[in-house]
């Protein structure tokens, strides 16, 4: 363990110019390492068409907190679905949604008294932050609603979750068709 004496000696030897140089280097290193770390963790989710790795990571953290989903593959599929959803939004709304994700990521320090980003928090701390978004000032609630609605739009459309809630699912099998009904529309569409 370095002693206080060591520390003061080290500080005394640090000129102003060297201090500035070290601070700058540390700053660059921390930002770079965070970005690399974030990218590495985001990359675990795979690449997406509309979401960056960091945005996917924030969505994944929110999704897990809201739905309590723990299987990594299921989370990946959820984010893939959300990526497609974001792609369908008009450009301005898409921009707003991405800004919202950036705000959520920084929100623990800004609003909830945590030293860390949303994605770095424990599940309990994330839940605390989401509760803050829900119960806090009125302008914050849409953020909570957007994350909740999008999460459940995927989670509760997965057949594996229907039994628990007593929902039987669709009455028609995927890809099935009733030929007598389709006949009504035959000949309406032009041939390619």
């Amino acid at each position: 363990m370095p002693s206080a004496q060591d520390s003061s000696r080290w500080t005394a030897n640090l000129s102003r110019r060297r201090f500035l140089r070290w601070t700058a280097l540390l700053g660059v290193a921390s930002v770079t390492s965070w970005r690399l770390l974030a990218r590495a963790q985001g990359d675990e989710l795979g690449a997406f068409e509309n979401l960056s790795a960091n945005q996917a990571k924030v969505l994944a953290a929110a999704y897990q907190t809201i739905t309590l989903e723990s299987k990594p593959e299921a989370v990946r599929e959820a984010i893939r679905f959300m990526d497609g959803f974001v792609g369908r939004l008009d450009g301005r709304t898409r921009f707003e949604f991405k800004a919202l994700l950036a705000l959520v990521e920084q929100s623990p320090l800004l609003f909830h008294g945590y030293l860390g980003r949303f994605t770095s928090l424990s599940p309990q701390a994330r839940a605390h932050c989401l509760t803050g978004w829900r119960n806090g000032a009125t302008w914050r609630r849409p953020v909570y609603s957007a994350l909740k609605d999008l999460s459940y739009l995927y989670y509760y459309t997965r057949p594996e979750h229907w039994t628990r809630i007593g929902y039987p699912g669709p009455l028609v099998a995927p890809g099935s068709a009733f030929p007598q009904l389709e006949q009504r529309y035959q000949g309406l569409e032009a041939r390619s």
Partner: protein
Amino acid sequence: MIFTHRQLTANRELQADVCIVGSGAGGSAAAYALARAGRSVIVLERGSFMTPKDFDQREENMFPKLFYDAGGRTTRNRAIRVLHGHGVGGSTLHNINLCKRIPDPVFNSWQLPRFNADALRPHYAQVEKLLGVSRIGPERLNENNRRFKAGVEKLGYRGGFLDHNRKDCVGSGFCELGCAFDAKLNALRVLIPEAVRNGATVLADTRALHFETTGRRISRLVTQTLNPETGAQLSTHGITAKTFICAGGAVETPLLLQRSGVANPYNLIGSRLHLHPGVAALGEFEQPVRSWQGIPQSYECTEFLSFAPAARAEDEKRIWMIAGSAHPAGAASMLPGFGDEHATWMEKLPHLGCISAMVHDSTRGTVARKGEFGADLNYVLNSADRAQLATGLREAARILLAAGAREAVIPFVTPLRVRNMGELDRAKIEVNDLDIDLVAVHPMSTVWIGRSPKDSCLDETGRYWQLDNLLVGDMSAYPSSIGVPPQLSAYAMGLYAAETAKAIL
């Protein structure tokens, strides 16, 4: 014929007597009437051409196909989710088939000598006949509606069965995701095919970009065909026509006119937005309700709805109540909390009954462009409408308790749970922005009819005051909230606009 993105890969210049923007209730009715009258008609539709096989009863698949912004469109303050549809057939693909005419007192309140109940009556009658409108009988009530009716009757409230346009309905309960059993007698099944058989051309997957004008006339409409999966632009088209009818609904119609920069001397386009916002209360019953099964809305409570003018604001009755239903993702959005709390609610889903309360709104909002094609809906509920919705929530909870619910729940951010009438009467119920989910599915009156260009956008024939060959044939044209489901009135408005088009062609 119907042309989709599969065929519309090359740029074209097209001509017709009439070009109709939108293929929903209003657009399909106008196309039907004009094509049968021998006019050449081109109909544009932003959404895709889908048939019963495409309605797979899955929320995650159907929301993006049926709704603008995949169902995620909201008012500017995010307080109200606004659902309106696209696809060949428009909002008639996802609606619940409720058919009601505008009550005479609403027509009378507009004080318009020509655009009145008498003028619309023959069009209503024609639509009702075409769509086989008939009353849902007591034998067709699902469990949710049956309990709703029982609660209404126990309290001595006014109620009744609703008229629908459905035939051979199997009661699958998936109406809002499109009908896989093709039981909706709607624009898709009835009017568009008949228009096409009479020579109309439909361009699906095609967005109206903007009008080009010369003097007091629209000379051309520029359009763009998109790949519905990727959103990529495939081709652009120019359409020239003698007359143009806007029928894209009360959000898209004003946006198109704003994008086009048409003359708007009094800055009225897009103002006066009404939405019919609604809230819902839940009741937990001992026995399963399974509100997703059967015809979703077949009974109404009109105890708190009166179209007669009230002397004082507190005497107004502007709440219409019907049963509510949702499939899991929709229900999950409404139920309180997240994580374990929410999971507990979802496990009760089969036992939850639901009643929706919709306000015949006096609030007026605006529609403006957001980015290139987005919609900025600036609509903030006024205090009178908030009070009406609070009454609606209280009375919905009362009906649920009267129907035998062991607990009624108002899904505020912090849910209000009451077990008996005493608790309900003591409860403080207020509707504030973002305290409770509000949903609106009836945007209207954004490019409305009136007597003067200073205070309206259209003359009484449905023609735009500043352009001689532009008509509006959708819910935009009505001068105020109508207080009833708009489907029938949108069809009737399409026929009304078609009459004007025939006269000026």
